[in-house]
């Protein structure tokens, strides 16, 4: 595969090989290219009629279906910039995003709605915009170039045992960087994607899995917690060759049984680490190390490089010494955006400060041991704790939010609860809907007071001990 060619251009290069399956529908790479050409013509027609600019900003409601795949690939082929949306996004949140970015077009499967035909000043490299947290309704987007997407897909196919004859099944949203990276890497090698809308715990999912002899799948920590409860390690899945985990930390006592299952059944299990800011992937752990090093994220992906820096920005060279994990590689984003004017130009980034604290062991594998930034990852989604505090403050509820990759903790004072007649359970359900996370991972507790440190800052460790009581 020549590096100069983007995976999304000239899809016909893989001819009759199956590219995607959705229900009864199967399309070859040849047919996928034809569908892209047709969709491109539809776009051109609208553009001609309205004299639209050449490079447009397009919002795409990203369903796990072939129509979305066609729209996504067409926008990339035409060098537009596409922002992938959760198809279930609230209309009010969508309206806010549209007001912030003023997209030319809004696409939902085959439906194209033109918002306006005015030219927008967009950085020529801008290809893809992804949200890091679909949940808090923040307008913040990670802006990626076609080079970013191509580079990350190339790295992924280098370290994962991906074959052109492979079939994978979608288990993650299309608009989520990890889910998207699975699609991109499969398209790069000419493999096949089976689109699935069912949950891992449904009969329909496992029927599709067996019917299509699926070779690989991806999961976030919560996916694997479900699979273990389903006694995944007792399932007979002869077609499965490898499975991957990313999107937050999976506990070591969950990684080990998965690793043992893989080892005993001639399969491979890959624990990976990444961020949307790095397109998707930054590190992976060699599958043979999963059982013995269940805490590690392994080493940087091919083409990437890690370093560790102490609080003064000095390079850490000794093993076992922790500092902020810094990544370099061609998959680092162009930058962040909060509105249309941020898309005009980007200052090139040489490195990405991950916000994670890590150390390197004596064999060169990295272990994450903390986080500088105040966010947690639930269901693979990043939840900014300060944004949740603001969300509740806007309801007149002063609180502290904290937690880890298994739960969100909210501390309110007894006074606030009493004065505002707060029903804790109702508040939990409201927050669950607002953040689109299951209520079981939210824990709201009244406390006597919200403590401050001597410097007048919010004392999170103190409130955490109060919550533990």
């Amino acid at each position, binding site marked *: 595969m020549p590096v100069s060619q983007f995976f999304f251009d000239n899809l016909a290069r893989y001819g009759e090989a199956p590219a995607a399956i959705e229900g009864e529908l199967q399309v070859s790479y040849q047919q996928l290219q034809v569908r892209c050409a047709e969709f491109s013509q539809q776009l051109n027609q609208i553009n001609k009629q309205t004299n639209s600019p050449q490079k447009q900003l397009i919002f795409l409601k990203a369903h796990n279906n072939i129509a979305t795949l066609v729209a996504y690939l067409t926008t990339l082929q035409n060098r537009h910039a596409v922002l992938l949306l959760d198809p279930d996004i609230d209309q009010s949140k969508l309206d806010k995003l549209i007001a912030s970015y003023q997209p030319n077009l809004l696409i939902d499967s085959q439906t194209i709605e033109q918002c306006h035909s005015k030219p927008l000043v967009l950085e020529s490299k801008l290809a893809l915009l992804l949200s890091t947290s679909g949940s808090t309704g923040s307008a913040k987007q990670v802006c990626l170039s076609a080079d970013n997407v191509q580079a990350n897909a190339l790295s992924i196919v280098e370290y994962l045992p991906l074959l052109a004859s492979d079939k994978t099944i979608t288990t993650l949203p299309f608009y989520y960087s990890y889910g998207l990276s699975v699609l991109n890497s499969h398209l790069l090698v000419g493999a096949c994607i089976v689109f699935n809308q069912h*949950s*891992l*715990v*449904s*009969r329909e999912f*496992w029927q599709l899995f067996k019917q299509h002899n699926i070779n690989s799948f991806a999961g976030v920590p*919560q996916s694997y*917690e*479900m699979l273990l*409860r*389903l*006694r995944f390690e*007792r*399932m007979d899945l002869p077609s499965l060759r490898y499975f991957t985990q990313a999107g937050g930390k999976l506990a070591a006592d969950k990684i080990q049984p998965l690793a043992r299952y893989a080892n005993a059944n001639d399969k491979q299990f890959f624990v990976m680490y990444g961020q949307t800011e790095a397109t998707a992937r930054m590190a992976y752990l060699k599958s043979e190390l999963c059982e013995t090093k269940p805490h590690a994220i392994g080493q940087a992906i091919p083409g990437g490089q890690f370093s560790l820096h102490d609080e003064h920005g000095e390079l850490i060279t000794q093993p076992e010494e922790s500092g902020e994990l810094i990544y370099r590689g061609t998959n680092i984003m162009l930058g962040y955006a909060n509105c249309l004017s941020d898309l005009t130009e980007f200052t090139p980034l040489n490195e990405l400060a991950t916000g994670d604290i890590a150390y390197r062991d004596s064999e060169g594998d990295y272990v994450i041991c903390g986080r500088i930034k105040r966010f947690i990852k639930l*269901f693979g989604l990043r939840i900014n704790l300060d944004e949740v505090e603001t969300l509740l403050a806007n309801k007149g509820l002063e609180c502290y939010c904290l937690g880890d990759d298994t739960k969100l903790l909210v501390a309110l004072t007894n006074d606030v609860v009493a004065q505002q007649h707060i029903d804790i*359970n109702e508040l*939990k*359900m409201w927050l*669950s*809907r607002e953040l689109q996370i*299951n*209520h*079981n*991972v939210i824990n709201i507790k009244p406390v006597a007071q919200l403590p401050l440190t001597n410097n007048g800052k919010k004392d999170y460790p103190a409130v955490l001990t109060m919550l533990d009581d």
Partner: protein
Amino acid sequence: MQNLEKLSKAFTESLGIEPQQVSDTLTYNSIPQWDSTAHMILIAEIENAFNLMLDTDDIIDMSSFAQAKAILAKYEIDFN
């Protein structure tokens, strides 16, 4: 009747719903609270409450309150 109460409690706690919402017509995905995550928590609650381990097929098939009773009957849990 004690078993029925135990099962109802597993449903109200894992799905975060009121006891009066638990009925035979309560099915998976019929309320937003009963999603795949809540389903696995429900399974854990049921396994703990009745001190048993459900088979994969039973976990997948337990898609309504009525179904849960039918499946548990196979494990000799009596609801009559």
